[in-house]
């Protein structure tokens, strides 16, 4: 039986909940834009390319001895570069989006494997593939938490400032262009925001399950809200609640936190769909 008071008084556990809470706020807001603009697969592609950046960081740190090029810096570099490539008009207008995603996704992952095979393991001990791909929130240190918090605050500020343009862009891109919005720039802003969110989220759930943290709360929120702002707020709330329960279950059952948070979100998403469908049927029955 877990001694919950003792567990919650541990700095490691407290740090875990703080990291998850900060990530949930950003994922809830950016996830809303991802869901309404149907960019879930784009997000998955960007998230997976970060593996190349993590591998590159381990290679640079161990072979070239550049200590500041941490795995998070490498992940951010690969995420932003892949996001910019996808958003550039010369790519997005000339090529099929899913093909571009497929190329970046697979090449990013492959580069990660190659860089990690070439690194000098006697200089730097890398995290395991499992930890990188499926997350290990307990390994997030205070300096990484600081970076995550700064990225979150900056991203939220950008969204607040450009909210009006982002709403038009995500609802009707042709109208956005006719309104005088520079859609190339706004698309770049949106893609880079998604890239930064992927980097924040992979600290909680790992590369493979980033989509869960970004998509599921926003998709659930979309079922019960009537405006974009409302959807963002509810998405953040749901994200925080589901992540909290996921982490508590993980501690109680001594199972991986990232995977548990993803499964918790998935189960509650299915429950929400079931409840909504049942409510709609009851409503229809009353109307008849």
């Amino acid at each position: 039986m877990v001694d919950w008071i003792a567990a919650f008084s541990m700095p490691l556990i407290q740090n875990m909940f703080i990291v998850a809470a900060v990530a949930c706020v950003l994922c809830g807001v950016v996830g809303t834009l991802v869901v309404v603009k149907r960019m879930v697969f784009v997000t998955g592609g960007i998230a997976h390319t970060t593996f190349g950046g993590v591998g590159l960081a381990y290679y640079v740190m161990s072979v070239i001895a550049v200590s500041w090029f941490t795995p998070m810096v490498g992940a951010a570099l690969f995420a932003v570069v892949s996001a910019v490539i996808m958003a550039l008009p010369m790519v997005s207008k000339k090529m099929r989006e899913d093909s571009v995603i497929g190329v970046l996704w697979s090449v990013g992952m492959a580069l990660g494997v190659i860089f990690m095979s070439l690194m000098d393991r006697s200089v730097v001990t890398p995290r395991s593939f499992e930890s990188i791909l499926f997350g290990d929130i307990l390994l997030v240190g205070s300096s990484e938490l600081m970076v995550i918090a700064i990225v979150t605050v900056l991203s939220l500020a950008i969204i607040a400032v450009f909210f009006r343009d982002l709403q038009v862009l995500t609802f009707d891109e042709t109208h956005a262009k006719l309104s005088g919005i520079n859609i190339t720039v706004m698309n770049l802003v949106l893609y880079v925001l998604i890239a930064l969110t992927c980097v924040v989220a992979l600290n909680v759930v790992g590369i493979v399950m980033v989509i869960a943290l970004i998509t599921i709360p926003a998709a659930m929120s979309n079922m019960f809200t009537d405006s974009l702002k409302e959807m963002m707020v509810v998405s953040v709330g749901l994200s925080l609640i589901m992540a909290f329960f996921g982490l508590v279950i993980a501690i109680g059952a001594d199972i991986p936190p990232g995977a548990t948070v993803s499964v918790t979100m998935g189960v509650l998403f299915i429950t929400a769909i079931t409840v909504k469908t049942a409510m709609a049927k009851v409503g229809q029955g009353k109307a008849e």
Partner: protein
Amino acid sequence: MIPIKIEGLTAGYDGRAVFSNVDLELKDRDFLAVIGPNGGGKTTLFRAILGLIKPMGGTVKVFGEEPAGSPSGIGYVPQNENLDSEYPISAREVVLMGMRCKKGLRPFYSKEEKEAAERAMEYAEVSDFADSRISKLSGGQRQRVYLARALAPEPKILMLDEPTASLDPSMKDCTYDILRKLNKDGIAIMLITHDMSSISHDVKRVACMNHRLIVNDAPEITQEMIALGFHCIPELVHIGHCDCGGHNNG
């Protein structure tokens, strides 16, 4: 100044011309209907006027200037809006989107912008359902919301791409009532339509587009137009009673 002046326009996609050498003028207080078969280039003509595609040849001038993606003075109501029915947005928010982008950061809509949107909603008769989620409105109500969005920045030209497609007869009549009123108030209107009743009752001039353009300065379809676009005679529609309330979820 002539609202829209097109000379020798050739336009298309990926280097392939959809139409060529088109000349057209939209005059002050004009009400021009563009008819023609699907694929004849009507929507491409609109896209060239709006600056959404670059001409392959010739010129387009809107109030004397080349349109560059966001021509001022034009309100545009697109055809069968590819609306994401899951998008969480109210009719009022859609209309507010019509306010043109101004330079600088502007995270919120100003009082003046909100008032302009309210005026447009009253004109297009959408105020009663302004706070409803757009996906819960009927096709006719939604069409009027997009009309209000186009009217919000107080344009001098209104361009509509098949505004009455898939509307029931009473909703079509409502739409034309509003367009007639707008035209009387001085807005030049250019619309793509397959609705022959509107041509005889409302418009001032007719143009037929099928890879080339024929314009008649009277509201009549000529034999030459029928010959040009004969495989797509505009539909005859019922002219019914106007009931602008519409139906939700219709």
